[in-house]
């Protein structure tokens, strides 16, 4: 596999504030990487550094094997970017702005543009001043998706989109994924990440605290288990790996460390299981734990 994006020990300070303290991760060819973390963690800062909008203080940052600051022009020919807050020139129409972005990027596809305008139900004749937040976001998305790139960088691309449009976005991203492109997707909408991402990178306070596939990450967390037993279920509370234990009559609900699930079930079997339900951790649970960490 080749590394499309490669970050190593990336650091960035704003005045006295250390926004990034050694960010390291990669995006491989053909891979979709979900980039998540709490507000202010440094996601946008990392992305802006990748785009050469701001200059890093230390560390290594490459796209397509080229330095993101020195060789930004070469890199930019082959990437698309959508910021979380697409700001537009009020006096231009959405259609004009899309055309402009396509032209300045190069290699746009007029048909794809028209198709996307229809899919996203955008009125391209309206002056951008009159667009709602979601519609502004659509302009940015259409412009980025209408051109052919090898790497797509999305920073909360769907903020403000309604669920229907979000679904359209996800479908379109799946298409570029199938076409073998690489994607770096930062988002707070975890279901979106869950659906699209091959791998997840979690950042907190300027540091990467976890990376891995979803399965790998799930393994590190807890499932929610509901259990009824013939014997006294309350003894389960003290088994190692059981947390947040609650009990109602003879039915207990608790979360269980996935690594210790074998031992926990063995204890339960001793009590005689009459009912058993296990819910795997949602991405949401996973991140709650990491965010709060």
């Amino acid at each position, binding site marked *: 596999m080749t590394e499309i994006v490669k970050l190593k020990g990336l650091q960035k300070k704003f005045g006295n504030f250390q926004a990034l303290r050694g960010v390291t991760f990669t995006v491989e060819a053909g891979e979709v990487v979900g980039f998540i973390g709490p507000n202010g963690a440094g996601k946008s800062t990392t992305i802006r550094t990748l785009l050469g909008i701001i200059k890093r203080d230390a560390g290594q940052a490459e796209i397509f094997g080229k330095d993101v600051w020195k060789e930004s022009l070469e890199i930019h020919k082959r990437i698309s970017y959508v910021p979380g807050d697409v700001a537009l020139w009020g006096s231009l129409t959405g259609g004009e702005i899309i055309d*402009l972005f396509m*032209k300045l990027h190069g290699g746009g596809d007029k048909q794809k543009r028209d198709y996307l305008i229809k899919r996203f139900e955008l009125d391209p004749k309206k002056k951008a001043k009159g667009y709602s937040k979601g519609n502004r976001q659509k302009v940015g998305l259409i412009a980025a998706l209408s051109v052919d790139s090898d790497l797509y960088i999305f920073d909360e691309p769907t903020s403000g989109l309604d669920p229907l449009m979000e679904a359209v976005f996800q479908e379109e991203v799946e298409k570029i994924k199938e076409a073998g492109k690489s994607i770096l997707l930062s988002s707070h909408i975890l279901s979106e990440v869950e659906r699209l991402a091959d791998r997840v990178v979690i950042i907190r306070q300027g540091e990467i605290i976890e990376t891995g596939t979803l399965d790998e990450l799930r393994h590190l967390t807890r499932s929610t288990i509901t259990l009824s037993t013939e014997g006294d279920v309350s003894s389960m509370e003290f088994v190692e790996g059981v947390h947040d234990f609650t009990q109602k009559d003879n039915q207990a609900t608790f979360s269980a460390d996935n690594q210790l699930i074998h031992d926990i079930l063995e204890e339960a079997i001793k009590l005689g299981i009459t009912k058993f339900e296990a819910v795997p951790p949602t991405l949401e649970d996973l991140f709650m734990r990491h965010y709060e960490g």
Partner: protein
Amino acid sequence: MKEKFARWDILFWQYLKRDWKKMIFWILGVGLFSGGFVPAFEEIAKGQGLIGMFETLQNPAMISMVGPTPVETAADYTIGAMYAHEMLLFCGLFAMIMAVLHVIGHTRKEEDLGLTELVRSFQIGRQANSLAAMAEVVVINVLLALFISGLLIVFNVDTFSVQGSLLFGASVGMAGVIGAVIGLVMAQIMPAASSATGSALGIVGLLYIIRAGTDVSNVDLSMFNPLSWTYLTYPFTENNWLPIVFVLIFSIAMVVLAFTLEGGRDMGAGYLPEREGRESAKKSLLSVRGLFIKINKGVIIGWLIGFVVMGAAYGSIYGDMQTFLESNEMMKQMFAQSGFSIEESFTGTIMMVMTGLVSILPIAVVNKLFAEESRLHLSQLHATKVTRGQLYWTTIGLAVFAGLIGILLAAGGLGGTAISVLGDSATIDMGDFFAAGYNFLPSVLFFTGLATLALGWAPKLGKIVYAYLGYSFILNYFGGILDLPDWFSKTAVQSWIPQMPMDSFDAPIFITLTGISIVLLIIGYFGYKRRDMVEGA
């Protein structure tokens, strides 16, 4: 009614709390400018100064710049009369512009930024914000008026009567109120804060030009001009309070108009209709240059029209200057001795003043690039193959081009009108006007260079370039009237350049200043290339 303005007083106190630093700055700035020059005028008045100044200011060219005086003979021309004559119009303008910027900044601009939406979601009336902003501006101007009056009284000059001092202060304060109401009305009509500011300042400029014409031809007509209500109070001479009454009536009418207009429109909307736009872009838009032309077009065209009109307005005075010279022996002799015609002398001065104004345009174009950056308009562009160099040099190209055209139009407007009113008696031709104008090109480039320097290294300081321009402008404008020490005059960049057609062209200075400006552009570029783009926080 009550509902609409509900809890405006809360906002009002909030604003006073929020703005107190700005208020102090404002009141001290405008106040000291208005009241602090008294000692300088006492200097001028020494010996034959008053008489000389009286004669000089009878020149229609001078009247067009500083306004008229009711005094008819040099003997009655006191320091007080001179002070009001030379200062009041400018102090009024100054106060007016501050108020325009402030009111639009607190109303329309906040609306555009979405702050109003937040405020309105609380229990606050729909129009409370406008009322609070207006009330704040009135309070500021009342304080300003009192400060100026106090200052004038404290200087304790014989001919500065208490009544005159109070009236002088009141006139300046009232000018501020006029500016505020003009701003408030334009904030309702225009579709965005920037166009509201532009049009409101445009109106102030237009009023200034119109009064230049009516002051020279027939002062009675100036009574219809809100800007003239400031200096037509004639403090220290006639002490006429009537214009103040006009201001009050006018302001109340405008405020009512503004509130009616505001009541009738949606938040964020204006009265000028929106047309449906194009489905896809014209070819001409599809480049960095095309885009920058498009987003700067309004500002550039607006100013260019202003330059032609201004040039034409000043050009129309050339006829009156001849008449003036024929009727005034003393001035006739003065000009005969100096070896220049009155036209030549006026052309030199006025071109300096107009190229000072032309400099605003390139600064505005350069500052626009930073505004675009901080409004996040460029984020997605940065990720395309557009380079920072392209953004920077395209902007500079456009700025310089706008400056060149600006000079062309200002000089052309001035010369064309002047030559047509002078007819056969003209001693200068179009070539002289263009030479006089482009002679100042290095100063325009210098301001462009300063603005780009700020853009590259400290973009938040871009506005300070305007402050320096304003400072140079005032120095140039008054340089001829006040006898300033040479080193002091030279702090304004234009003073380095000889005034054509009176003086001859100075190639070394021209080239040096142009060279310095180009160096500034290049230094700015290195900053721009390597700094972080400012995007939110």
